[in-house]
């Protein structure tokens, strides 16, 4: 099946130009129920359309930080503002509305392997669909068009009726990106999106993310633990160590000394993709 974007409801109708949103964290602390700290007093302000790398070792609070932005992790104190929303106050329907405007991709892809690629990408339309439509399997023309356009933009349209579990790792992550894009989001979050991929595939997925940032103008926050990927694909870098902000500046000028400060140890070969 081929998808012709020039039909009546083309991608312009399916994916109207949506302005990116700013993200602002003010003195955010996250304390988990077991008493450990995810974040300690972190303040960050991301402008609309920026592409930011969040860098740190595992356990540094990267995952916690991006999950406070869509409310998957509740903050203990401080404020998280995303566009018009103050995330901390959100519950139920309003929280789902915010999440609908914030796309997210994951290290483990988080696809339903037994479901089709189509159904997996349709997950991105949840916040645009009334629940009864999902229950009855009655997606609208706009929903279908958004799914097809998103898959097309990551080069996965020919797999639309395949089972997600039958795809390779790189293909799965592309489908996961399509799922996030079909939300028509204002902000895109990525939690270690390439940590499960081989180097060529990792570069392809990072290029996709950068293209999303430049072509759609989306605000992008991407968690990485490899310094060369952060330097190569992002403009700004935030460094976390032990839940605290230890660096915030241009990614290009972050030299090895900066990374040693973020990692809290000398640079090792495994800290770059090329040599790991």
């Amino acid at each position, binding site marked *: 099946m081929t998808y012709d974007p020039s039909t009546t409801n083309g991608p312009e109708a399916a994916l109207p130009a949506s302005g990116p949103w700013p993200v602002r964290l003010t003195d955010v602390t996250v304390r988990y129920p077991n008493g450990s700290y995810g974040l300690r007093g972190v303040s960050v302000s991301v402008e609309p359309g920026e592409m930011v790398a969040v860098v740190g070792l595992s356990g540094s609070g990267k995952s916690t930080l991006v999950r406070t932005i869509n409310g998957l992790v509740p903050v203990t104190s401080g404020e998280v503002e995303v566009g018009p929303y103050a995330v901390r106050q959100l519950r139920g329907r309003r929280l789902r509305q915010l999440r609908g405007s914030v796309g997210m991709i994951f290290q483990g892809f988080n696809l339903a392997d*037994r479901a089709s690629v189509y159904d997996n990408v349709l997950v991105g339309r949840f916040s645009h669909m009334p629940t009864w439509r*999902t*229950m009855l399997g009655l997606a609208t023309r706009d929903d279908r068009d958004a799914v097809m356009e998103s898959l097309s933009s990551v080069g996965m349209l020919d797999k639309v009726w395949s089972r997600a579990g039958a795809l390779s790792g790189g293909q799965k992550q592309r489908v996961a990106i399509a799922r996030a894009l079909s939300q028509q989001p204002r902000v895109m979050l990525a939690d270690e999106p390439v940590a499960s991929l081989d180097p060529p595939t990792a570069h392809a997925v990072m290029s996709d993310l950068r293209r999303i940032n430049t072509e759609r103008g989306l605000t992008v926050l991407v968690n990485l633990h490899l310094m060369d990927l952060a330097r190569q694909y992002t403009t700004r870098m935030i460094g976390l160590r032990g839940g605290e902000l230890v660096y915030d500046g241009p990614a290009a000028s972050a030299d090895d000394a900066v990374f040693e400060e973020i990692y809290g140890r000398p640079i090792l070969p495994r800290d770059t993709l090329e040599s790991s």
Partner: protein
Amino acid sequence: MSTELTVPSRPRTWPRTVLVALVVVAFTVVTVTPALGGIRIDLGAIERNWHFGAHRVGQMFHPDFSILPRTWKPLLETFEMAVVGTAVSAALALPLSMWAARPTNPHPVTRGVLRAVLNVNRAVPDLVYATILVAMIGVGALPGIVTLVLFDLGVVVKLVSEAVDSADASYMEAGQAAGGTQSQINRLTAAPQTWPAYASQVLYSLELNVRISAVLGLVGAGGIGRLIDEVRGFYRYGALAVIIGEILIVVILIEIVSNVLRKRLR
């Protein structure tokens, strides 16, 4: 072998194995020792009574095929009850399984209520359901079908919801991050992920239903069981053997079909 491998010494597990075996044996001995509150097992009773039963078993080796024409209708009814009972319980079991499993229903109160109801449901023997339902609805296939549905729900919902509980559910986080309601996430992603466990249990419940519905007729809940009760009452053990043989054939046929279907699920 030129190099000597330094293999770590193997941990000693046999004392533990012996201990576990001793505990199991001791427990079993206690359960059959009346002085310690166990059940009384009188092996001598076998010798004293053996010939009564042996005579009947002997009769069963002389099958009385004259009963055959009378068996077709109730046998078909038994089969139909099993199929209808399976279909109705299958339709109810999928949403109820989602309701009873933690990943698909994070609300602890509603989940706990359903699980408690299911526990009560499983505690009641199927013949008790059938007896009560015959009194409430009347003699026939309907109380039998309702009994089968109640029995199947207890089994299928328990096993499927436990499968959902133990399955990897990373796709849930993606559904939540996309702003989906729990129902949306369950419908589009959890349901296909649950499908193999669900279909397998539904096929198993179909097998069970043929066996159970053969007995339900004893209390008037339709099917071949009423005929079994009748020929047993007239000591026609040759005819009983024929009926049991027929049920066996139906059960084996259903097992063959469900095994074929189950292989295709993977």
